[in-house]
């Protein structure tokens, strides 16, 4: 088995940077601990701050398989863990009946063998893999309901799954687990307790600029600075949904597509829908408020340039 997990916080940071993910040192620390102590990492934060991205980057840079479990209400064992292939099982029964060469017991043990098992994400994740343990991404856990959360408790603490007909399957080594939540529901303490918790916050201006340079290399320096300045200002306004990093990136890309090299009030008004997703918020910012914010941003950038 390949052992390429980082051995220090700095290495973790470098690893994420190699995957074009600009992370805070605090996040790298939490991730390093999770990798080191082989416990799940629970990431909570507003939508669009890059929670899911971490798992993807991790799988890519560590060259592991990414097993993704997207949660939704009513997610059950049949679609999250395993399911029997009923059609094949029935054909098998029919064949056995026609041939008449098998007893009921032997048939029973036969059709409940691994051949007829459909493996779903959780089961896939605890299977051993020659490339190293996979990265298991349990995305948007808050979308599922409490019964599934309770089931996860067993999986996340012992990394074993019990199939009544087959027995217990245990992971030889626990997978790298990343759990994300948008907080549309409170996750039970018992589950959080089993994980390392990290609140993914909006980045500060310096880091956001860094992210923008990595993610949208085509944007001019002036545009990037203005975009970051504007978004940072926007996050201080009382809005229903603040723009995340994903929105910043989208907005910059949109502006590039419109051939803008700098922000002007009209461009902001025209593309505000990329940044803000609630009508109330857009109505509040569009027009004079946006112009005021933009002037402030420009003044700040100008004074920052004059100083050095």
């Amino acid at each position, binding site marked *: 088995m390949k052992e390429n997990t980082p051995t220090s916080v700095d290495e973790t940071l470098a690893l994420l940077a190699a995957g074009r993910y600009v992370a805070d040192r605090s996040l790298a620390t939490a991730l390093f601990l999770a990798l080191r102590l082989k416990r799940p990492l629970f990431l909570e934060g507003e939508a669009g701050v890059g929670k899911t991205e971490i798992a993807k980057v991790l799988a890519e840079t560590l060259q592991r398989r990414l097993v993704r479990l997207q949660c939704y*209400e*009513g997610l*059950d064992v*049949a679609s999250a863990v395993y*399911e*029997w292939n*009923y059609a094949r*099982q*029935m054909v098998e*029964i029919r064949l056995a*009946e026609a041939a008449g060469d098998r007893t*009921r017991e032997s*048939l*029973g043990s036969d*059709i409940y063998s691994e051949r007829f098992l459909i493996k779903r994400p959780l089961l896939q994740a605890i299977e051993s893999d020659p490339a190293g343990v996979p990265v298991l991404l349990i995305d948007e856990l*808050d979308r599922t*309901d*409490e*019964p599934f959360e309770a089931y996860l408790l067993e999986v996340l603490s012992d990394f074993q799954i019990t199939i009544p007909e087959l027995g217990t399957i245990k992971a030889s080594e626990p997978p790298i687990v990343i759990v994300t939540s948008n*907080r*549309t*529901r*409170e996750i039970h303490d018992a589950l959080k307790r089993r994980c390392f918790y990290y609140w993914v916050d909006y980045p500060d201006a310096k880091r956001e600029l860094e992210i923008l340079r990595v993610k949208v290399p085509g944007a001019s320096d002036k545009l990037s600075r203005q975009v970051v300045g504007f978004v940072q200002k926007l996050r201080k306004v*009382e809005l*229903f949904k603040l723009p995340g990093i994903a929105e910043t990136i989208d907005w910059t890309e949109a502006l590039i597509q419109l051939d803008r090299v700098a922000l002007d009030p009209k461009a902001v008004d025209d593309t505000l829908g990329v940044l803000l997703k609630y009508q109330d918020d857009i109505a509040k910012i569009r027009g004079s408020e946006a112009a005021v914010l933009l002037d402030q941003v420009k003044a700040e950038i100008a004074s920052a340039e004059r100083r050095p």
Partner: protein
Amino acid sequence: MTPTSSDRDPAENSPDQSRLVENLMFFARTLRAAGLPIGPGRIIEALRAVEAIGVGRRDDFYWTLHSVFVNRQDQRPLFDQAFHVFWRNPKLLERMMAMLPPSLTPGGENVDKREELSRRLAEALQAGRATGDGNDGEIPEEEDVEFDAAMTYSDRELLQAIDFEKMSTEELASAKRLVSGMQLPIMALPTRRFAPDPHGRRIDMRATLRAQLRSGGVPALRRRNPRRRHPPLVIICDISGSMSRYSRIVLHFMHAVTNDRDRVFSFLFGTRLTNITRMLRHRDVDVAVDRVAEKVQDWSGGTRIGHCLAEFNAKWSRRILGQGAIVLFISDGLDRDSGEGLTREVERLHKSCRRLIWLNPLLRYDAYEPKSLGAKAIMPHIDDFRPIHNLASLADLTSVLARPGRRRMEGVSRWLEQRNP
């Protein structure tokens, strides 16, 4: 406190086992009256346990009874107090069992203990003593019923209709007790999860195949249907000055509802919003209410409904209304900010929940019309409008929540208004 072995133990001087039995029974009843769930089975268990451990040491005796009678951490303070008062109070001992050595020093510690005795326990002890008075030593089993019921039936009937505002302290106390036993069935809704159901509409392949194999190929289809479950309940209660008489009893109601089911979230607001969900989860109502009182700082002050709802919408609605919650909004609609910004926030609240029900104590007046600016702002955005001023109206809530309700379609009515002015 740590009892020493030199403390008198309950049966040291008395070989009379039957007295001990009586005593234990009385102790158990006292605990039960104070709210601990103790049935006859537990009393028998306690007797067995005491027999097994012996009554040689006071601390052993304490922990023996503790292990039998207490099954939740939050019952412990009550048990502790009850134990120390019951097994030490000379009067009780003389009167009811006369088997323990007359007394302990009336030391300061003892007095303190009694002073901080919870009122509920004091009542329970009082009741116990009163029962003990008449037929010392011989208490027929039937008395259990009366012991439990603090009030007679007709008392309850009368109490139902009295306005909370007009209740005396004792009446309010009994009302609180009635409220704490209240059940609030909420209509269960189909979830996306399935349960076996012989008349279900979907075929459960896994169960069918397993059954088929067991029975040897007889094709019997197993079926399943969506499981049903009650939606989350969110209670937002006004605790401003104009509501103060109601909010205290509503708090008891909130506690009863919280402890009756999962997925209940409670908020209080006056000038600011406080989430009290965690505090109300404490099983003991007195402790829970005390904790709430510690946390909330704007009791009986002004009201800023719009501001508080805005805070709720921004901070909490996405976290707890996600799964189609029913919202109970308890307020008289009198707003210090005179309804400023309220319409928008109530509309948003209504649009993010399954049902918004406004409980208003002012509705007890037949002539009440929502004329205050706050009430006017709230009215167009609620699904149901109910009084909440006496026990009967609280109990009536059942009929609202147990049935599917009408939902107001704001968009449609506004459109209709525009078309036919």
